Each structure stands twice: as structure tokens, then as C-alpha cells.
């Protein structure tokens, strides 16, 4: 019952998602290998250092720098004959590729696993996390993504062997053109200890700068509700919720967010939730540890001026 982790790299570093996937795999199998699709063979070193990984399987090709999903899914499906599990952390990277691998293997993948009950039984969210389902699969090969907020992030300390696979690169009918990366000096949203999140209540893109100022003061990442994103205050990769990112920081400070169920689904597991809002009846307030019922601009100005 060996497991293969599809590794997601951020530059040359192993993502937090992949580290969560290793923890999940360790609950299912004693034999864990990692698969890396990359254009740079030297990326094996950060993966080989992961605790709990036996062998790093490398597929190296220039075209894999921004791999086409058609190519990646074929390459992965071809190595799965040796494994019972294919696991990756939930992200747009894995959600793009793994279902296509599932189709090639005639397997029904399982998305966003939050808990492992047994070797074929898992808990996953439905309806934006308002319902948790325990599901049992009858597939012989199990393909799944796991929530990075639900499993510890496995650390380093391993010394896995590295094996470079020789493969024939499949043909592809699509091509990469460009990537416009969101640049930020701030902590990454899904792994940050603190998040300051703004909603429609901010009123404008200019006012959203007050959120950024507070985030910098607290060394926090920035988040946003879908309403704030739709209103154009900030780009979509900051969205927290059902169709955005799922977060569980130590501190989630929500400013001017009323709390649609789709947003709550993305942050309800935060350790401490603070709500700043002038509407006492907003659903957000009920799930807060601390509530400051106030005009949000007064609060932001006072917080930004406060000498810690």
C-alpha cells in the first residue's frame, strides 16, 4: 500500500500543501515516495530533505517549468501502477491535474480531505464546509487532495534517495504563455499566522490601503471577502472562502465583512477571530471571539496609530 505524493514547489521550496500531504500519507502508508515534475534537476534537494519520504522520483524536462496539464496528468498516470495512493495538497495546482489523472486511471478522486478515518474512508466538506461527509471509496487506487489547514506540515530531516525517471514526453495541445505573479512582501495567505481581511464595508480600493497598513503593523497576510474582490478593491488571489482560499491562522481580523456562509467556510477554523463592524447583527459577529462594534474607519485609524 505505498503512497505517491505529487510535490508542489514554490520556486525550489516544497510548499506547505505538499508537507500536509506527507502527514496525511503517513496515516495511510509506511512507504511514501515523492514525485516532482520540474525543469530543474537541482530541485530534488529540498524534496529529498523531507522527513518520511523514501524515494524522490524526478521527471526533468525543460517543458515542465510551466507544465501543461495534459502532459503532467499523463506522466503521473503512467507511474501510478506502483502505488495505491496519489496524494497532493489542495491547491489550484493539484485541483487542475489530479482529477484528470483520476479519469486516465478510471478512478473517482476525493477532494479536500480533512480527516482520515481508515485506509479507504475519509471526511471531506460539502456545501462550502457547512456539511462534513464521511465517504468510503471502493476504488483500488485512491487519488485525493488534502486540506493544508487540516494536517500538520511535515518537516525536514529526511535523506531520501533520488531517482530520475526516463520518460517519453507526451504531446500536448496547449501552451504556456505567461504568469503574472502577485507580488507581495507580506506572509503567504494560506500559511500566515495572522490575517487582516477586508470586506465590502471598506468602500473603495483606496480605503483598502488601511487594511494593508494594519497588516504590515501586525506582520499579517491580507485577505478579502468575495464582495471586496468583486468590487475590485483587491485581486482574486486574496479571496478567502468557498471559491477562494481556506485559512486557519492564529488570528483572523475581519474588517467590514458581514460574513456570507461562503466566506465563513474559508476561515471558521481560525484560532482567534476578531470582528470590526458597525452591524451587530452581521453573521460574522456571532463567530467572533472579540467584537468591536464601531465605524470601521475610526477603528482602523485608531489601530494604525496605536503604539504597540
Amino acid at each position, binding site marked *: 500500500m505505498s503512497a505517491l505524493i505529487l510535490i508542489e514547489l514554490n520556486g525550489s521550496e516544497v510548499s506547505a500543501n505538499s508537507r500536509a500531504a506527507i502527514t496525511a500519507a503517513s496515516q495511510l502508508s509506511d512507504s511514501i515516495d515523492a514525485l516532482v515534475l520540474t525543469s530543474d534537476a537541482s530541485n530534488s534537494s529540498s524534496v529529498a530533505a523531507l522527513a518520511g519520504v523514501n524515494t524522490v522520483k524526478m521527471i526533468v524536462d525543460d517543458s515542465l517549468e*510551466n507544465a501543461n*496539464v495534459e502532459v503532467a*496528468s499523463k506522466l503521473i498516470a503512467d507511474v501510478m501502477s506502483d502505488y495505491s495512493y496519489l496524494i497532493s495538497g489542495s491547491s*489550484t*495546482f493539484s*485541483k*487542475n*491535474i489530479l*482529477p*484528470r*489523472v*483520476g*479519469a*486516465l486511471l*478510471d*478512478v*473517482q478522486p476525493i477532494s*479536500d480531505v480533512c480527516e482520515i478515518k481508515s485506509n479507504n*474512508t475519509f471526511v471531506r466538506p*460539502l*456545501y462550502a*464546509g*457547512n*456539511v*462534513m461527509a*464521511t*465517504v*468510503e*471509496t*471502493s*476504488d483500488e487506487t485512491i487519488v485525493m487532495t488534502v486540506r493544508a489547514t487540516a494536517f500538520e506540515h511535515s518537516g525536514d530531516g529526511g535523506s531520501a534517495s533520488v531517482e530520475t525517471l526516463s520518460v517519453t514526453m507526451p504531446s500536448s*495541445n*496547449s501552451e*504556456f*504563455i*505567461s504568469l*503574472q505573479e*502577485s507580488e507581495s512582501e507580506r506572509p503567504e495567505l*494560506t500559511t500566515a*499566522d*495572522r490575517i487582516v481581511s477586508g470586506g465590502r464595508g471598506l468602500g473603495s480600493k483606496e480605503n483598502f490601503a488601511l487594511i494593508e497598513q494594519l497588516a504590515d503593523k*501586525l506582520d499579517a497576510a491580507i485577505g478579502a471577502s468575495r464582495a471586496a*474582490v468583486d468590487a475590485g478593491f483587491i485581486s*482574486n*488571489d486574496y479571496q478567502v472562502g468557498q471559491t477562494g482560499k481556506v485559512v486557519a491562522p492564529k*488570528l483572523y481580523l475581519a474588517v467590514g465583512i458581514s460574513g456570507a456562509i*461562503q466566506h*465563513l467556510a474559508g476561515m471558521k477554523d481560525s484560532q*482567534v477571530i476578531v470582528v470590526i463592524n458597525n452591524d451587530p447583527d452581521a453573521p460574522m*459577529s*456571532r*463567530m*467572533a*471571539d*472579540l*467584537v468591536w462594534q*464601531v465605524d470601521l474607519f475610526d477603528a482602523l485609524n485608531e489601530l494604525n*496609530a*496605536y503604539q*504597540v
Partner: protein
Amino acid sequence: MKIIIPVKRVLDPYTQARVNKQTQQVDLTNAKMAMNPFCEIAVEEALTLKESGSASETIAVSIGTDKTVDTLRTALAMGVDRAIFIKTDSELDLQPLHVAKILANIIKREEAELVIMGKQAVDNDNNQTGQMLSGLIDYSLGTFISKFDLSSDASSVEVCREIDSGIETRKLNLPAIVTVDLRLNEPRYASLPNIMKARSKPMETLELSSLGIDTAPRIKVVSVEESGTKDRASKQISSAEELFTELNQMGVL
């Protein structure tokens, strides 16, 4: 160029899902149902292509019991040319692999070159069907798209994908499948005259059983529970100083 738009009937997204403890299922009896919001965006994009003269025909497809006809009528009222209804006798627990196989069958039959569909349905939140369909019929795939530009000779499409690290631009040669994200467009409402007109648009009904597709569940739902959001203490504070003091005591700064 024919465009297929698969659409799904789901619990209205502004309605709270309730679990029936006896059946261990989400209770949809008498619940308000609607077209999955991502499917509405897919329909809108297909209609825009048809109106610009890039598409010859737009075809909505849905699978389910007789009630599913409502969702297809909505698509027709928005402006889709015709509908294909895959009829099931009872509420089957169809999973993305099954749906992808059914859609693959219809796409081959229609020889459609482009499939536009939602990135996920807001009931089961799988985010799988488009990807799986592309694997089954080996179409090129663009997921989570927020921009769609068809080339002038209609042989390829340039898409912007909303991914965790930013926005990725890719060129997909047709035939292709794209799954749409929220910011692609603003779906139109069906006007009253168009709702009336939709009643006379063609809708073909196919029995699922006639397609010869194995729909045995791969995944069994053992149990479900409402997780909802637990109310917390909601202690009132009234100044920045008080907030920082509390947060320091909680050890989260």
C-alpha cells in the same frame, strides 16, 4: 463551432444546507433549487460567443430526474439554442467520473469542439468534472478561467487562469474544455419574453440507461453532519488598546 454547456441543478447557494439525520443525506425536499452559479457564468460566455458570430450553436446539457428540466429551461431562457436532458428514473448518486463519462458520450455524438462549464458545483464542491472530461476525450483543458479570447480563425483560445500564485495565460488549441471562475463575466437574467420563448425551444430527452454507461457508485457516503459555524464568546471591546491587550493575552501577536 458548436458549444456544449453542461449545467447542474443545485440547492440555492443562499440557502443553508440541512442534514436529514435519518437518511444521512442533505435534505432537498421542498428546498429552493437553482442553477449552479458557475454554470450561469458558463452559459453567459457561450451566449457572448454566439452573439459575436463565433459559435454556430449553443447546447445546454443536464442530467437528473424530471425536475432537472427547470434548469435546462433556465438555460434556454437565457438564450441557449437547444437542450439535451439526460433523464434518470430516481435521484442517482452520480459522481464526477460518471458525469464526465455521460458528457463524453454527448460531446462525441454532437461533435462539439468547445465545452464551457463551471469550475465546481456549490453542492459537492468537487471541482473535478471538467478536468476528468478532458482526460476521457483528450481535449485540451483550461481550468478556473477569468478571461477567454477566441483566435480569429477559431482554431485556438487564449485563457487567463486564476491560480494561487496569480494569473496564468495559456493558449489552448481546439477542441478544448474550459472551466469558468467567478470573474469571467456577469451572467444575464432571463427576460419574461425569453422565458416564454424558451418553452418552444427544442429539448431532446435521452434515458441515461440507453447510453450504456456504468454508473455504479465508486464512493459511498457513510454519514453527513452539519458543521456549520460554531458561535463563539463574542466579547465586546471598544478601543485599540483593549484589542491589543486581549490579543497579547491570547498569545496571537
